[in-house]
């Protein structure tokens, strides 16, 4: 009959699925929670039997540098994205100046450019051997002042340019959501324009700004491609060297668990700074009027915003297209096409698995309120915070343990040693993608499910629909747009993902991002351009989607 009815805190929960399916759903949700928890647990288990020799060597030589570099990066990129993202958000959301509408969208574009692409284009363009310095030398002779694109300043600048959009997007939403009433009430209570900004607008936007900042810092901690192009040692590069250079997985795990401490610190910091404040849409009715910047002030604002768009997207993309065009005749071959096909295949499979996982998590969150399910759902949502390299090490260690067990069993049964079964298989990579991008897919999937209100399903049933008919006529058409969006987002994230793919890919499963890494590590910027341009093109649709969605309500003045 009606099916499972569970109630929590006096609230009726929808009886959307039959009890047997409910049990399956709950088990699947718990498994997804475990998929996040187990690799983490395995990672930390290396401390139970630390390889002291290696560890002491690491601790004595590289560790102090890694910690210092990481802290410097966090501070630098944090301050940079906060100023750039927050300031630009205030300009475009609350002020008006020439070209504002265009620049508003343009400021989101750097999201389509992976940090490692920006890094290699900047280096390839500005470094000693690049076109700029070559031209200078040609003009002024060999005595012309030269510089290298390396070192802390450059890394901070490039990562800031790559990651400020997170702060920009969230802060902009928060500033836009300020109701006219709120700001007018502040003025009536005696605050001037600056007082209104610092005592009302900024505190109201704080949760959003902090959330954006924490996303930017997570990306900074997770970044592998950009820092390795720029020759800057961080935990991610050290993990790569320990694994691929020294073939020492436990040492990589020790480094990974340290990196995880920084991530935990950032997450904890976000919770603390956000306090009890939550996002809430206060905007009802007309938005407050914009501050009109005229004359020189208006042009200065436009110039500042345009400079950021130019440096973060237009110029690097133009350079990329130029290089790609110059090398296309040699590079655009069957090899490239098979690379593209492999990348899409991998991304498509990951999208399928991840969207299924997101569906399970979202359904379970709606359906069950018991502590284990809630914990599993919470854990699954945390996967986005795990840097790809950390995840790769954790997954690899799990699979290696399982492989050892399988081999032992097989040999006990009289068989030959099998070698790795799961480790080095496509399953390891897909699991890593699933954990890392579950939260990406959960957004659109969850909002698709929101459209499927319990009463909608009940209405269909009271009108005689059931079983496959119900799925075909109600569930599928309502969920389809959300699930497609989720799949597309995951596909694009997987295409751009570098460290986990690099560490876990089975032989022959190179992706565009891996190819970019290979070319850039040899300093071959021009040949890296074609795969990089492909990635930028793939990254544009989600940015366009985001821009359309977030600017639709922004122009109420």
């Amino acid at each position: 009959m009606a099916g499972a009815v569970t109630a929590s805190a006096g609230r009726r929960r929808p009886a959307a699925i039959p009890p047997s399916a409910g049990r399956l759903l709950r088990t699947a949700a718990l498994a997804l929670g475990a998929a996040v928890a187990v690799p983490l647990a395995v990672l930390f288990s290396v401390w139970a039997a630390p390889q002291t020799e290696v560890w002491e060597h690491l601790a004595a030589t590289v560790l102090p540098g890694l910690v210092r570099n990481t802290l410097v990066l966090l501070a630098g990129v944090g301050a940079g994205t906060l100023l750039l993202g927050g300031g630009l958000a205030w300009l475009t959301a609350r002020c008006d100046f020439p070209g504002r509408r265009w620049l508003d969208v343009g400021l989101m574009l750097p999201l389509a450019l992976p940090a490692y692409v920006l890094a290699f284009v900047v280096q390839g363009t500005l470094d000693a051997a690049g076109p700029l310095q070559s031209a200078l030398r040609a003009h002024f002779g060999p005595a012309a002042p030269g510089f290298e694109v390396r070192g802390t300043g450059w890394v901070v600048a490039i990562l800031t340019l790559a990651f400020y959009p997170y702060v920009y997007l969230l802060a902009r939403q928060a500033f836009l959501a300020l109701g006219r009433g709120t700001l007018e009430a502040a003025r009536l209570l005696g605050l001037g324009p600056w007082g209104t900004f610092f005592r009302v607008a900024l505190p109201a936007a704080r949760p959003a700004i902090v959330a954006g900042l924490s996303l930017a810092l997570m990306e900074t901690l997770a970044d592998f491609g950009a820092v390795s192009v720029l020759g800057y040692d961080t935990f991610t590069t050290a993990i790569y060297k320990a694994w691929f250079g020294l073939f020492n997985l436990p040492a990589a795990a020790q480094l990974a668990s340290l990196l995880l401490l920084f991530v935990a610190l950032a997450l904890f910091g976000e919770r603390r700074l956000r306090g009890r404040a939550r996002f809430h849409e206060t905007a009802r009715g007309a938005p407050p009027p914009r501050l009109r910047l005229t004359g020189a002030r208006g042009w200065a604002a436009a110039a500042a915003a345009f400079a950021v768009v130019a440096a973060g997207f237009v110029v690097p993309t133009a350079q990329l297209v130029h290089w790609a065009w110059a090398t296309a005749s040699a590079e655009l071959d069957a090899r490239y096409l098979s690379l593209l096909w492999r990348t899409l295949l991998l991304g498509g499979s990951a999208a399928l698995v991840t969207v299924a996982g997101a569906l399970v998590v979202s359904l379970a969150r709606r359906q069950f309120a018991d502590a284990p399910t809630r914990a599993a759902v919470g854990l699954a949502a945390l996967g986005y915070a795990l840097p790809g390299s950390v995840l790769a090490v954790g997954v690899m260690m799990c699979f290696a343990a399982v492989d050892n067990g399988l081999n032992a069993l097989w040999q006990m049964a009289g068989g030959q040693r099998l070698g790795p079964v799961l480790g080095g298989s496509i399953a390891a990579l897909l699991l890593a993608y699933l954990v890392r991008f579950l939260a990406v897919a959960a957004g659109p999937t969850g909002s698709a499910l929101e459209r499927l209100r319990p009463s909608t399903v009940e209405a269909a049933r009271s009108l005689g629909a059931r079983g496959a008919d119900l799925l075909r006529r109600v569930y599928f058409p309502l969920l389809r747009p959300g699930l497609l969006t989720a799949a597309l987002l995951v596909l694009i994230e997987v295409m751009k993902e570098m460290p986990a793919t690099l560490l876990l890919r089975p032989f022959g499963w190179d992706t565009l991002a891996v190819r970019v890494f290979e070319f850039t590590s040899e300093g071959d910027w021009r040949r890296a351009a074609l795969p990089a341009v492909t990635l930028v093109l793939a990254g544009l649709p989600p940015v366009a989607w985001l821009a359309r969605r977030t600017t639709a309500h922004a122009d109420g003045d």
Partner: protein
Amino acid sequence: MPDTLLKLDDIACRYDALLAVDGVSLALRRGEIGCLLGPSGCGKTTVLRVVAGFEPLARGAVRLEGREIATPAGGLPPDQRGVGMVFQDYALFPHLRAVENVAFGLREGSRRDRRRTAAALLDLVGLGGMAERYPHELSGGQQQRVALARALAPRPRLVLFDEPFSNLDVDLRERLGLDVRRLLKAQGIAAVFVTHDQHEAFLLGDRIGVMREGRLLQWDSAFALYHQPADRFVADFVGQGRLVPGLLRAPDTVETPLGLIRGNVAYHWAPGSRVDLLLRPDDVVPDPAGPVEGEVVARAFKGAETLYTLRLADGTEVLCEVPSRLDHPVGASLRVRADVDHLIAFPH
């Protein structure tokens, strides 16, 4: 009764430890409109969902046309009950046009036939021109009409309405309510409405049930609920009034702060027992020669009448409705007498 359509026999529903519905029995005749009235959380919506087939029973049975459709052991799935439902949030399918929403439950005939039937139903609810619109392109009242047409389309014997007008403006509520009632009566379709608004219940229902904490306190006509409430809660919940303390002097006479009140109902409790007497605003009338005087402590202007709250010498408060052309400010005193023909008393 041969023409009984719906019968609930001592049904109970459980959410974990909580009995949301506890021992509700009622019967509805063919074509009759019933209303379940009560404060939020009283279990009225749960009763409706039991009838629809969305909640399992812990006890009792539900019969539709004499056939058992739900017992604690299980029951007929909702898609086979032939019971329509209009949801509080209308629950229109957002991906379907109005006419497609209405046609959703139609099975027989060609696609074109079903569409034509659906269009005719939309005409019937006054939405002829809106057939091709999507739900989000319709106003709340229009969505409500689409939901009604959709529930009526498969020609159910019974339609359930879960707070159908609660999201609408007050004046639209009344108009739509009367429209819906006329439509149901014209088609001879029985209905159960759930509402927390007694005016709505009086407007719509042939029979009204007052529920509290999972129990059905009274299942009766509007007249009986108002004039013969089964208990204090019903007396308090339905209509306005105050309970005043009194002593039973004779089976039909109570001594109160307003003097001896005699009515046409006899209570066979021991003479001298303490009772609470319900006085409605129209039971207390202003009279310069009245036996008691009250001080006006509050007043509410209602157009034709003004409702006064009076405090008597012993502190008892009563309500008194006076034509509004007679104006008494707060603090003034007003002489009144009791004018009751129907005694409503509860043991103290």
